[in-house]
């Protein structure tokens, strides 16, 4: 492990200051504020607050809607991560094999990452629209069979597909980079040992991708818990029947629509702890199986 040590200098401090300011203003300050609000009862239109201890948390945790939200968030996170990483891996494996036109695919596959979540949600509105979208074809076969604004599972599937579509690009870049970092001579050695392409993928490429796989797992899980607001807001608005009311979305509706700042703050703290706990679990139990070479 290489480490560099630097002496404190004023130049360094000045150069770091803008970045530190941004982190402070947009992360530490709001987080601290949320933490404070979570333990107080905040009045909707300002004008003081009262210390209530853990009462906000107790209210949130005894709310069946909240547990529904946790449940669908977990489903969304797991499904999106599996779908996004699986697709990204398959696409990267083929892009790496340099099949015809791989250069065009490579660029095309990176674009979705640059599209903002609400734009993704809006585009998928058209895809999933029961009257006019691509999926509306299902309704010509059997009228009323497809409508995400009616059937909860279809709504969940919609946000999962849209979310995964957006995340594929990110994972794809990392998988492709990792695949291209595998020395050519390793594949050639396996060729000489008689392994065919599929065998080489399973025995050689996938094991050597494990560090990347692990990194992407952490990033994707975290992302799907915290960064799904845009898609839910534009695509389903949390419905039907709260079936796509993900934790981040619920924080927004409770806080800014129902003006329950304290409850929303408590939920934010819980979400933060949950993501931290998940990351910890992944490092603790999954990283062991990772070969760093």
């Amino acid at each position: 492990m290489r480490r560099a040590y630097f002496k404190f200098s004023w130049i360094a401090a000045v150069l770091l200051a803008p970045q530190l300011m941004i982190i402070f203003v947009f992360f530490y300050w709001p987080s601290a504020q949320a933490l404070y609000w979570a333990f107080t009862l905040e009045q909707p239109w300002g004008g003081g607050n009262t210390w209530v201890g853990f009462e906000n948390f107790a209210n949130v945790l005894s709310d069946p809607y909240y547990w529904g939200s946790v449940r669908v968030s977990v489903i969304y996170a797991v499904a999106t991560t599996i779908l996004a990483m699986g697709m990204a891996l398959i696409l990267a494996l083929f892009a790496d094999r340099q099949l015809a036109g791989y250069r065009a695919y490579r660029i095309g596959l990176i674009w979705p990452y640059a599209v903002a979540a609400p734009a993704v949600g809006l585009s998928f509105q058209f895809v999933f629209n029961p009257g006019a979208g691509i999926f509306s074809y299902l309704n010509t076969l059997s009228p009323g069979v497809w409508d995400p604004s009616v059937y909860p599972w279809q709504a969940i599937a919609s946000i999962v597909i849209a979310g995964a579509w957006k995340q594929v690009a990110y994972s794809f870049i990392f998988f492709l980079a990792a695949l291209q970092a595998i020395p050519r001579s390793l594949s050639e050695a396996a060729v000489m040992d008689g392994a065919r392409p599929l065998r080489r993928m399973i025995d050689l490429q996938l094991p050597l991708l494990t560090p990347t796989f692990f990194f992407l797992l952490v990033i994707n899980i975290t992302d799907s818990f915290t960064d799904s607001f845009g898609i839910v807001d534009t695509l389903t608005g949390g419905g039907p029947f709260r079936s796509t009311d993900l934790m981040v979305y619920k924080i927004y509706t409770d806080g800014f629509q129902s003006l329950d700042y304290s409850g929303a703050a408590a939920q934010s703290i819980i979400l933060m702890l949950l993501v931290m706990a998940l990351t910890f679990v992944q490092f603790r139990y999954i990283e062991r199986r990772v070969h760093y070479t």
Partner: protein
Amino acid sequence: MAKISMRDVRKSYGKDQVVHGVNLEIANGEFIVVLGPSGCGKSTLLRMIAGLETITAGQIAIGDTVVNDLEPRERGCAMVFQNYALYPHMTVAENIGYALKVAGTPKAERMARIAAVAASVGLGDFLDRRPGQLSGGQRQRVAMARAIIREPRVFLFDEPLSNLDAKLRVQMRHEIRRIHNRIAATSVFVTHDQQEGMTLADRLVVMNKGVIEQVGTPSEIYDQPASTYVGGFIGSPAMNFLSGQVDRATHSVRLASGDRIDVSPAIAARNHGKLVQIGVRPEAMTMVPAGQGTLNATFEFVEELGAGRLYHMMFEDLTLTVLAGDRQTLAAGAPVGLHIPASAVHLFDADTGKRVEAAPLAVVEQVPA
């Protein structure tokens, strides 16, 4: 075990041809070393035999089978790579046994063979280690074992010793030769290190710029280099070269300086008036008192080699080197005579660089009728 025959084998990348029509017959069980500078096409040639590169034109046969269109796994070749190319996530045993695993060999047999092969290269105690935990020499052995276990018909080595330190390189060289003798597979070994080539090869193939310059036993190549390129490339310290013109009357080559170097009457008679390059090996010249030798040179400095000394001289504007066993003390700038016997002179055509023989080559390499 198999012979390898290559007929007019060519390789191009786009418009760039890197191997220009190689013809080579390798006998069953032979140890061939392909020697050449980097970029001469030697690795490409090896990879074409292995099947890792396609053959642009020509034909390669292993045994009696033309392998041009066969997949690498169907050719029966095993290869040792320059950087070893060990699978970093597998243990030594898994690395060695991977080919067997792919081939579906039952586990018990696989384990037994891994143990036997590992023991034969001195890796018996390291079977559970990962490549990252091994030294360079041990990794080299794993790469060897991985090739041996397949019992290949042909062994291919792509500069396998270039990543080792000098001492280990010599040791592994001996080991490779021992393994070759034991297994008796046909071996093709690519290197840019002439010492490796000279010591390992049954026959040497000297390549330059995608063309074979000469094929022969190491001693043939050393004693009768076919071109100035081979003469200059093989042998360390390198051959000395002088330019001149053949004169029949005096059986000699006249240099620009007016000095004459004797050559055999037969050569002189056949090549009168030809512009030539004279090649003389440093150990074939002797130093004599000034004025008594073939040439007069000026002493510059000496390099101690332990077993002998390398004396550097200036002759006209050329540097000449003499390798001698005795230790003389000379002052810089001292005049020295150089004795060059006619038997030590190699003659090369100044235009083509080809060796000039006393008789046409066809007669020298007379085939019994």
